[in-house]
């Protein structure tokens, strides 16, 4: 009987007296738990399973009771099941969807790009872990959020960007843009873009030194008219060299202008007439590592859309607004303003529309808000691209719209169930 009482005190007392007696009888059998659960008849199996799986000291080994001990049950609020979505799954899926663009970047720019990407991803993970450790928070780098931030930052830098610049960028992204505000879910601005803009202002030369793609170098550079006089041949020390047979050995990197400033500043040289859209679409253009190939980005973005990780609202509203403004301006002055396809396939628009503007934390939650957000992005981007001081405006417009997100959310909340009127509706209760 003493065994009985110990069981009762540890477990939750249940059941009628009749069964309790039965239990005591069974406890006298001194049967071992394992053998009972495997071999005995089903009713006894039940009782065996019901024995709470508690650790029994070695001295009590022989006294393991197959008594009427109820299981210790978990009690919690409903629901008791969960869907398959998790934060790490979302983050790593986005990461994987960026891999086509990453691959194109490495293919087009070679090892220089790979080094920048590896530095950014690795340092972002390490910085996040260190910061979380320092602030005595749970280290959550395995959720993929830091890796994704690092990858996005790397993809938004030019190949050959100095390593120390990459490291500063990672630190700004993970430490200042994210951790300072409270970590995942609390940052008002997209960390990767915040870091990129920080670097653009702090290291303007490094951030606007655009290596030509391998293919362009092989073909002796892009058409001069297209890129004006900006194509430069540099040696490993960064000194500008003349391209002739005497210097051929010393040339380390060939840089040029990206299409956007070329068109913006040199339109009088007729650069618009030399646009090869297929080059732009496939990523044969100078630019940030991850932004050059619209094809690769569309591919990744489409997968995200089909898997339901992003909705169509932001990308579509963004691309549509850009196309609309580009079409109108192009129609007004085709010699000066490029058409919608050019604006779609150059600069950071594709990566911005599918991967940066759709960042959950910093974009509106509700459908109407997302449309507004995309519209705002398109307006700002085109404003900067066509008439602003910078050739490219995707980063700035995303940051500006990030700031507007709480306001947008506030005014675009869905109307709750039961406010829609239907014919013959009666007045509701209270």
């Amino acid at each position, binding site marked *: 009987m003493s065994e009985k009482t110990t069981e009762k005190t540890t477990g939750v007392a249940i059941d009628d007296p009749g069964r309790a007696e039965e239990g005591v009888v069974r406890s006298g059998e001194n049967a071992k738990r394992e053998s009972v659960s495997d071999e005995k008849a089903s009713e006894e199996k039940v009782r065996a399973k019901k024995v709470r799986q508690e650790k029994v000291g070695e001295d009590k080994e022989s006294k393991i009771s197959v008594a009427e001990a*109820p299981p210790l*049950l978990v009690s919690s609020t409903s629901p*008791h099941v969960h869907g398959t979505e998790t934060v790490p799954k979302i983050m790593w899926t986005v990461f994987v969807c960026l891999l086509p663009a990453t691959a194109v970047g490495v293919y087009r720019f070679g090892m220089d790009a790979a080094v920048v990407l590896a530095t950014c991803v690795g340092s972002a993970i390490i910085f996040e872990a260190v910061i979380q450790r320092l602030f005595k928070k749970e280290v959550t780098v395995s959720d993929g959020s830091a890796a994704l931030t690092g990858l996005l930052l790397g993809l938004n830098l030019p190949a050959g960007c100095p390593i120390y610049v990459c490291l500063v960028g990672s630190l700004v992204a993970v430490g200042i843009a994210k951790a300072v505000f409270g970590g995942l*879910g609390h940052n008002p601005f997209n960390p990767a873009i915040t870091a990129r803009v920080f670097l653009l202002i702090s290291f303007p030369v490094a951030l606007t030194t655009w290596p030509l793609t391998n293919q362009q170098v092989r073909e002796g550079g892009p058409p001069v008219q297209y890129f004006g006089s900006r194509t430069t041949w540099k040696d490993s020390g960064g000194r500008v060299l003349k391209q002739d047979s005497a210097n051929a050995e010393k040339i380390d990197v060939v840089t040029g202008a990206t299409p956007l400033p070329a068109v913006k500043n040199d339109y009088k040289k007729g650069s618009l007439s030399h646009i090869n859209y297929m080059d732009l679409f496939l990523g044969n253009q100078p630019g940030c590592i991850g932004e050059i190939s619209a094809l690769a980005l569309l591919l990744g973005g489409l997968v995200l859309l089909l898997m339901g990780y992003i909705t169509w609202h932001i990308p579509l509203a963004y691309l549509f607004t850009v196309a609309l403004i580009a079409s109108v301006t192009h129609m007004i002055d085709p010699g000066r303003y490029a058409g919608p396809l050019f604006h779609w396939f150059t600069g950071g628009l594709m990566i911005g529309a599918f991967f940066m503007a759709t960042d959950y934390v910093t974009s509106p939650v509700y459908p109407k808000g997302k449309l507004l957000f995309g519209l705002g992005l398109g307006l700002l981007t085109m404003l900067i691209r066509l008439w602003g001081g910078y050739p490219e405006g995707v980063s700035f417009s995303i940051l500006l719209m990030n700031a507007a997100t709480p306001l947008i959310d506030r005014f675009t909340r869905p109307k709750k169930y*039961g406010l829609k009127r239907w014919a013959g509706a*009666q007045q509701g209760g209270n």
Partner: protein
Amino acid sequence: MRSVTFPGGIHPDYEKEPVASRTIRESTVPERIVIQMTQHVGAPCRPLVKKGDKVKMGQLVGEAAGFVSAPVHSSVSGRVISVDRAPHPLGMELPSIIVEPDGEDEREFMEPIENPLDEDPKILKERVKDAGLVGMGGAAFPTHVKLSPPPDKPIDTVLFNGTECEPYLTADDRVMREMPNRVLKGMQIAAYILGLREGVVCIETNKPEAIEAISKECESFPGFRVQPLEVKYPQGGEKQLIQAVFGREVPAGGLPMDCGVMVFNVNTCGAICDAVYEGRPLITRITTVTGHGVQTPANLRVRLGTSISHLLDQCGGFSREPGKVILGGPMMGVAIHDLSVPVLKSVGGVLVQPRDEVLDQGYGPCIRCGNCVRACPMRLIPNELGNYAEKRLWEEAEDRDLMDCMECGCCTYVCPAFRPLIHFIRTARAKVHEKRSKK
């Protein structure tokens, strides 16, 4: 016929097999029956017997205390061994009558009504009330109250809810498959009491046998038809069901009767039939014992007051180490910690989750993915409600339509950060109720 549905909602794993294809069997009578005085929404019953009294099967043992209340009856004949507090599924001990069955099953039923459709609806309504009927889909709202809409709310349609959208449960499915005649007779009476001759039986398309059985039976019940529905949770919610079938939204803060509709569960209809044609009060119900933690899942006809442990024993007990025992389905059911609690009128299922299936996941911050907003069938903003409640900003949550939540759990199910949104929302609602009652 084209199947319909409502916007929002989720598609959980339904796991209705293998128990869905098992016929209902009779549960054995336990050695003790615990008749809780609180088995419904509303005032608890007043016990009418005392220790030592002999009771008969079907005898009134607890009288309704007020209009929104439902009497309780003894489900066995035997001797009252105590009138005391006993564990209730809600977690506390509540007044109950404990009866020791004598195995005789001596009956004391009410007078059967042979031709109910010739009677005054008032008599039938009175019968439903005396039989202690409540909504058996889980809400346990007294049925006679629903059958008494105020005169300024005319009812033009009755829906019969056979959606059974909760995963695992099959009690409604089995009842429709095995007793379509009984169910439709009950529906006919419910409609008749409301002054109607027709009704729509709503069944999700994952129950083709039930759809077939009821459709066939409808041929002998003119005015009644089956409406197939797409499979989605929480389609069985009254407001979602009405939206799915008619595209109408029940006005915010209102009841289905505000848009001229009344909804009854199919098991309730079966019980209405018993109460009227046999004079049998609500003393048994069909309960599904299921889940991966049960040896042989089964659909049992259970006497109310049977302990959960007795039911589990009849199903071969646990197959693996149990983690949670849930009364109801996995989305809205109550996880109990004490297996001696009795089956109540509203317990349509006992779900055993093995220890290894129990969610034991910490939660992270909201990443604003919007999954909960898309899933919410009430078009609320669970993300913000959860954030406010977590920060104890009850009033802000109240301003964001906190009280319109029906706690279906969709938001929590889809949350990738595993945020216990429903828990947050429930806490906030309790605080708001507290504040309101103080005023």
